[in-house]
């Protein structure tokens, strides 16, 4: 049986709903464009196939989605949503890598930043200690 020795533990975040809010595993991620970058606190979502941000995050990082990305779609509980699929540099826990990110252009989903399995989970092994409300992180070699 393989075992993982996690190097870092981050407490879950409960920014809303004290004392009955939902604690969530979140990580800082820097979205890097050619001339600018922005750090966003994003949900680590093991149920998501890919990472998804609102398109305004791309704009802030100087990423021109209309000319450098292809159109795509993601499916959530609310149905299909059109996206721009972009190869973007991300930096998490000091590791910089290129990931395929979906940027959603939906005014109803503006406060949106989540890290999905594709690319991000290929860079890190994550553990979810739900009892202790801790996100465990170990970069792949």
């Amino acid at each position: 049986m393989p075992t993982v020795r996690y190097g870092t533990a981050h407490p879950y975040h409960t920014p809303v709903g004290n004392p009955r809010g939902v604690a969530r595993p979140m990580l800082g991620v820097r979205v890097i464009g050619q001339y600018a970058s922005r750090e966003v606190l994003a949900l680590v979502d093991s149920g998501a196939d890919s990472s998804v941000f609102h398109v305004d995050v791309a704009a802030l990082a100087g990423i021109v989605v209309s000319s450098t990305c292809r159109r795509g779609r993601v499916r959530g509980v609310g149905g299909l949503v059109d996206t721009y699929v972009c190869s973007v540099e991300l930096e998490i826990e000091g590791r910089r890598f290129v990931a395929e990110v979906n940027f959603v252009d939906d005014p109803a989903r503006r406060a949106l930043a989540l890290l999905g399995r594709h690319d991000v989970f290929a860079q890190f092994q994550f553990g979810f200690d739900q009892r202790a409300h801790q996100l465990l992180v170990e970069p792949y070699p």
Partner: protein
Amino acid sequence: MAQKPIQDDHHETTDHTETIEWLAHQPGLLDDYVDEWVAIVGHEIVAHAPSVIDAVREAKERGYDDPLLVPVTPPDVLLD
């Protein structure tokens, strides 16, 4: 319609590690900002707006070029 890229002259980046750790120990701090983006520097909320672009603009007007940007999702159970 997709936003155009924002002209941004900041190149210096800020290490937000301590801010993120601190925020994790502030349950309910962002109760008043559901469905908004909050810009945080150190232990201070420096701006907030439904649009992250507006939150960054407001933060810059206050002299903060590279805040941590926090999307405040509702406390309801997420399924996706």
